[in-house]
């Protein structure tokens, strides 16, 4: 016989788990946010010369004044804000059109090659978001950034103008091509879930296809459309690589690049302010999503078993449409990769001739006379690059494990304590990182860990800090997977094991995790992939000693050594796509499972 209190503590660990995780998340997310706000009010070492008569760590309102009111506020804040909003709006609408259109074709018409198209349509999201930016440069480069012109010029002889090659236009296009899978998955899911009887009853009272689409179908999936729009908007807000590559040459800044420039440069106070603004916009957007969509979302899930409404016959357009869709997907997936690959085997960029062909950038020895990259060995022989690649995959692996474990435990705790205040707090806290644009999350953790605080030493430049930032950022997805896994299991399966005396640890190991292993695995695959191609999140936190593949490729870009950048991105892409396919083969896990809103 044991005492009641002991049973409560030891046999139902969800309470302790919840409290521990609430503490941990408060420490890793909430406190950094407040510290970041504090940073906008103090004088940093480099800033004491800009603010006359100030000492380091003095209280100041100068950052707020400069950022929002002064003559340079336009350059620092308003112009980047405007650019950010234009790009985010543009990319969201474009992504919605592409993703929604594809979803409708796949779910509602007799389009051939559906499986292939569905599989391919998710790939652009798996690729690093700036792959397309790099490919755009390879294709449409003009002589603005020096060096030879791009492949497009080589093929057509037409030189691209600046607005087409750089700036807001290509940023919007490439980001839309990266984020449209959100719309494809969300809208496709909603279309699939509509009870066919709802449409059939409209059809029975004489509504035509178009009227049904306009009056029944679209209103029913409106919540998903909104969700897809706002999600792309919020993600576009925090992205760094694409605007850096495509905006830099024409000096067009968005909030994320302005944040980076200021924080890394001479004006950390302004950088933190930019981060703050981004977080506010991000929260506002997702709050709107919650307000406008949340309440109405319930009716989408009303799914029935009624017979499927007849697929729309495309007739002679069937194969033509499929051909166009495949062509589109190829041009978003294959063309960029081929363009990148071609650029890595051209000794002198932009000269597309057989005698210019080389493997120098892959396996060449360090050289001061051959090609670009003075003194840099080829990618596969370059110890710096190989170390960065190793760092990337170690980080991705560790983060996948950490978040996978957190997902299992937090999901368990939330579902077990469901309905209580503790569970609600934990749920919302673990969702919080989702609202924070990734580069701003990096800024917040920088504010927290750049200096020693209490017993915790400065973690700046440490591998641990990268693990922390990536884990925190992936947590919402992992927890979502964990919660849905636990919901599906239900209480009784675990209680059946309690009844025969299985300890908590045994129950987790033999019952809960094995039953939901594929869900948990999907919850781990997503962090692995996103860390592998992560740039925005870590760009503020890497130092020369702990470069990742993505950040080191940025260094090469800065020097104009595109073959190295392109080669590294090409490698990452192959690995990421390979992992996705492999996991699908082995575990039957689809990435779509872990994605979604």
């Amino acid at each position, binding site marked *: *016989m044991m005492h009641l209190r002991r049973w409560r503590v030891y046999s139902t660990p969800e309470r302790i788990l919840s409290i521990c995780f609430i503490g941990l998340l408060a420490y890793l997310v909430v406190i950094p946010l407040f510290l970041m706000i504090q940073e906008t009010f103090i004088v940093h070492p480099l800033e004491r010369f800009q603010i006359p008569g100030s000492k380091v760590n003095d209280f100041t309102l100068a950052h707020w004044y400069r950022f929002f009111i002064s003559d340079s506020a336009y350059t620092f804040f308003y112009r980047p804000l405007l650019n950010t909003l234009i790009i985010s709006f543009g990319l969201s609408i474009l992504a919605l059109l592409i993703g929604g259109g594809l979803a409708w074709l796949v779910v509602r018409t007799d389009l051939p090659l559906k499986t292939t198209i569905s599989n391919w349509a998710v790939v652009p999201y798996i690729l690093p978001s700036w792959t397309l930016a790099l490919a755009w440069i390879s294709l449409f480069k003009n002589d603005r950034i020096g060096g030879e012109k791009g492949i497009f010029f080589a093929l057509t002889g037409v030189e691209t103008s600046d607005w087409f090659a750089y700036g807001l236009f290509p940023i919007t296009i490439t980001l839309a091509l990266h984020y449209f899978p959100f719309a494809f998955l969300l809208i496709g899911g909603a279309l699939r879930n509509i009870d066919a009887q709802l449409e059939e009853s409209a059809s029975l009272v004489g509504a035509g296809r178009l009227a049904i689409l306009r009056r029944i179908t679209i209103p029913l999936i409106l919540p998903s459309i909104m969700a897809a729009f706002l999600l792309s908007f919020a993600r576009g807000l925090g992205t760094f690589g694409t605007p850096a590559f495509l905006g830099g040459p024409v000096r067009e800044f968005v909030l994320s690049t302005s944040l980076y420039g200021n924080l890394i440069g001479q004006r950390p106070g302004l950088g933190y302010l930019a981060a703050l603004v981004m977080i506010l916009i991000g929260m506002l957007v997702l709050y709107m999503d919650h307000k406008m969509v949340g309440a109405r979302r319930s009716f989408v899930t009303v799914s029935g078993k009624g017979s499927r409404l007849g697929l729309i016959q495309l007739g002679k357009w069937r194969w033509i449409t499929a051909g166009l869709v495949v062509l589109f997907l190829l041009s978003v997936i294959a063309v960029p990769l081929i363009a990148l690959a071609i650029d890595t085997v051209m000794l002198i960029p932009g000269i597309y001739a057989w005698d210019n062909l080389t493997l120098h950038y892959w396996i060449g020895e360090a050289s001061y006379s051959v090609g670009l990259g003075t003194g840099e060995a080829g990618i596969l022989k370059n110890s710096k690059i190989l170390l960065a690649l190793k760092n990337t995959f170690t980080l991705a692996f560790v983060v996948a494990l950490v978040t996978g474990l957190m997902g299992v435990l937090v999901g368990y705790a939330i579902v077990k304590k469901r309905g209580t205040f503790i569970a609600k707090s934990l749920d919302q806290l673990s969702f919080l990182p989702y609202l924070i644009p990734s580069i701003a999350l990096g800024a917040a953790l920088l504010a927290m860990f750049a200096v020693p605080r209490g017993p915790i030493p400065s973690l700046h430049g440490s591998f641990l800090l990268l693990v922390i930032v990536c884990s925190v950022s992936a947590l919402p997805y992992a927890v979502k997977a964990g919660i849905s896994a636990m919901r599906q299991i*239900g209480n009784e399966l675990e*209680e*059946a094991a309690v*009844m025969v*005396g299985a300890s908590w640890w045994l129950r987790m190991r033999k019952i809960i995790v094995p039953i939901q292993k594929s869900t948990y695995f999907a919850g781990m695959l997503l962090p692995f992939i996103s860390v592998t191609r992560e740039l925005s999140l870590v760009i503020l936190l890497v130092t020369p000693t702990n470069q990742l593949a993505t950040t080191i490729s940025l260094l090469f870009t800065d020097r104009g050594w595109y073959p190295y950048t392109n080669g590294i991105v090409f490698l990452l892409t192959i690995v990421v796509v390979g992992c996705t396919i492999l996991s699908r083969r082995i575990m039957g896990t689809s990435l779509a499972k872990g994605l979604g809103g």
Partner: protein
Amino acid sequence: MPDIVLDNVSKSFTKQTHAVENLSIVIPDGSFTTLLGPSGCGKTTTLRMIAGLDLPTAGEITIGGAVVFSEKSGAFVHPSKRNLGLVFQSYALWPHLTVKENIIFGLEINSVSKNEIRTRLEKVAVALRLDSLLDRYTNELSGGQQQRVAIARVLIMEPSVLLLDEPLSNLDATLRMEMRAELKRLHRETGATIIYVTHDQLEALTMSTHIALLNSGELQQFAAPLDIYEKPINQFAADFLGSPRINLVKATLNRDSLIWNGLKIALPEPVSPNCPNEVLLGLRAEELKLGRAAEKNALAGRILTVLPTGADWFYQVEVSGQVLTIRHNDAVPFVYDDPVYVELNPSSIKVFDDLGKAVL
């Protein structure tokens, strides 16, 4: 002698509402006791408190003389140490394990020897006709087979008490009949105490040795099935048991007689003078008789609806503005609108006061 004693057990999930309130009950050893009541009456919560999965907020639970839960002393015995087995409503079979692995899981984690496991597995597999299904996964089984696995998984632990939470609710009607007989056989063969939760009064009546009737977390009546049926302690008990539902009609009570629609019915014994005048009369469908000619204790009525079930004929009869359901089997059935006389048997009537309490 593992009687199960609940002493003033209460359970509340929120501060305002009680799921179970001051429940005191002694479940005799070897009985087939059914916790019966409408959904939300606290029957499953009671079962889970006996199992140890839910903790009461107050009271004490004793199994076979040993205190397994006491709010006062803080005593608590782990669910697995109470020597009882629980079959869940959903069966809770582990989908990643085969039938065999499901059944022997409990023995394995309790480090029972391989030989012992094999012997016991053979025994339950044969008893529950699962021997040919052992290597299947549970999602490859029918509902009835799944249920037998759930029971086998519990029986192999050789519990002295078997707890069953609405085990038949997921089965279709035919299978349900079969499983009722099967469970009765199981009770006879194992000699274990069975505590059975259901909202189906017919299931309770056909299977149990004892019924604990619950409503809104409170015990209404604890007795043998036919005792509750024949002598319900209150209107709720009279209404909940029996199908079709008992007819309840207004009547006036005097010291030694009842007056219903002008019909005077002599009571077997006089009632206490405290009884109210306005009462409800409970008349079961089979306790009323229909006749074509006027009798002494009969009221005139008219046939509203004829409801044959094959074995029985049920009629809805209108008697001075009230509708009564009556079972009547006659060589020549009545038809719609037939004039009839309804006769009642004074010895079987139930009378309830304005609070629903039985008066007689």
